[in-house]
């Protein structure tokens, strides 16, 4: 870990964001044990109830406990986000770093491919991929990862090239260090904060997309709960339960906000100039 990333750790906003994210991850991992009631058990006698002692966040149109559905739905949202960001990181950051070895033809082609992928809107592309390759939990998320790749590629490449032109790199090369060694020991550590900022931003963006997709019913198997799915089931009953969307909406907002705050804090303390993720 680079020194600059350690500096960010001292900021209160970073600690608060990390605490929020730790809670979310804990919910994702232990959701099935933590949820007070069965998230898929229907209870027709208690449909569309408001918050009460038995159901802290009320029940949905099938009488299912909303709190339990939100808690056990965390796993799908977090996993989907991690999958998308992980795919983007592997497909984008690694070629971006390696690309400093290659010439202008490679650059031109790679940039055009990146431009082409950036013209595809996340959600429509993810729906299309789910339509063609199957509506499973992984297809749509990996599609988002493919579209995140050009963002990682551009940012990593720009940053890597900047540091490859530094004088100490020139000095290392004059001393006979190989290109691989230069990238590994002198460039990678410097590029890391940029990748960190981009990863946090990409995670925030993917969580929004994953929530939108699960709201549309893409990448989810119906009775299983998701954050977006809870919102979708509230939609038909806004007249009876106008405040029902508040809890899932806040959950999404707080998590995305924590990721954004983390990205901003790392950007400010390290001085990297990574653009916000589209």
């Amino acid at each position, binding site marked *: 870990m680079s020194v600059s990333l350690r500096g960010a750790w001292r900021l209160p906003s970073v600690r608060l964001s990390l605490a929020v994210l730790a809670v979310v991850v804990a919910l994702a991992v232990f959701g099935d044990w933590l949820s007070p009631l069965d998230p898929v058990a229907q209870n027709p006698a208690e449909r569309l109830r408001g918050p009460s002692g038995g159901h802290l966040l009320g029940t949905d149109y099938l009488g299912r406990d909303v709190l339990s559905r939100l808690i056990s739905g965390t796993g799908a949202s977090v996993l989907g986000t991690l999958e998308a960001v992980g795919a983007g990181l592997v497909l984008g950051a690694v070629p971006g770093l390696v690309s400093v070895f290659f010439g202008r033809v490679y650059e031109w082609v790679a940039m*055009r*491919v990146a*431009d*082409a*992928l*950036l*013209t*595809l*809107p*996340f*959600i*429509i*592309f993810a*729906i*299309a*991929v*789910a*339509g*063609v*390759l*199957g*509506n499973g939990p992984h297809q749509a998320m990996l599609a988002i990862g493919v579209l995140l790749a050009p963002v990682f590629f551009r940012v990593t490449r720009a940053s890597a090239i900047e540091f490859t032109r530094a004088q100490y790199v020139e000095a290392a090369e004059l001393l006979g260090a190989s290109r691989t060694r230069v990238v590994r020991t002198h460039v990678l550590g410097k590029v890391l904060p940029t990748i960190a900022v981009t990863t946090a931003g990409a995670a*925030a963006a993917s969580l*929004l*997309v994953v*929530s*939108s997709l699960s*709201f*549309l*019913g*893409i990448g989810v198997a119906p009775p299983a709960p998701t954050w977006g799915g809870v*919102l*979708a089931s*509230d*939609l038909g009953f*806004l*007249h009876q339960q*106008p*405040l029902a*969307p508040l809890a899932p*909406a806040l959950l*999404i*907002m*707080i998590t*995305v*906000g924590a990721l*954004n705050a983390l990205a901003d804090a790392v950007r400010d303390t390290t001085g990297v100039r990574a653009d*916000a993720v*589209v």
Partner: protein
Amino acid sequence: MTSLIVPRPAWRAGTVARVARMARGTASLVTVLVVSTFVTYGLGALGGANPAAAVLGETATPQDIARMSHEFGLDRPFLVQYVTWLGDAVTGHLGRSWFTQLPVADSVVQGLKVDLSITVLAVALAVLIGGGAGLGAAVSDGGRFDRAVTAVCAVASTVPAFVFGIGLVVLFAVTIPLFPSGGYVPLDQDPVQWLRLIILPGVALSFDAAADIARQLRTSLVGALRQNYVTGAVVRGLSARRVLFRHALRNAAGPAITVVGLHVPRLIGGAVVTETVFALPGLGQLTREAALKHDVPVIQGALLVTIVIVLIANLAVNMVVARLHPGSSR
């Protein structure tokens, strides 16, 4: 002092540079279009879905599959299929749906009218609200209004457009019934009802872009207002308004306009989800229904049209930026 540099004939250098730039731009655009359409068409082939299998399901016999593959031209080599599809697309034909046999182009145009209605409204609102907020924030630099705008922008960027949509429905359709909560009427049928129906989705969609525009405009305008030419203009006695709008804003608007361009794919994606909240029969519903049925030509057609819109929007943004700053276009 005389210059030692021999001046080049300006018109010639300018023209050559402009032609070279246009050629480079066109080459990039064509490559981007070819790659993205190839991905779009390749996706369909990659899935290996077949019209007979999709329509008839388990009961499809090998003869059915062979017959329908031939009917839809899927028994030809992949590259031939791709080139034919792209050639047809240029002339406005996107094939027929495997299920309804209806021309894909017609369904896509139907859906597109809905999405363009709300997206254009959203862009207009985002530019107005975001531009106004960014301008005000930069002028009040560090003041109360500036801090309020920064806070609202930070919150706005955490809310997905569809959650805004649900909030607006709760506020302005359920609690205070000002607007209908959903549905769509074409513009040429009933313009007033059309406007009433697209206002809430348009507002919901505009928030995210408005926040980004405000943030970007604030940052670049604060920077511009600290430049020497601004001090110079003030010293020469120009009015504050003239300095702000004619000098600083003109130089600071570029990045904010670029943000509008970057937002177009996100707006179209957001429109797809917003459609669901407001029960609008748009491109998103079309794509989603096609996806659930594996209706590959419809999926491909919808994606192609989105790509073309995004490219047109990017081109328009580049032209506006180049007009504002003749020097910025390398």
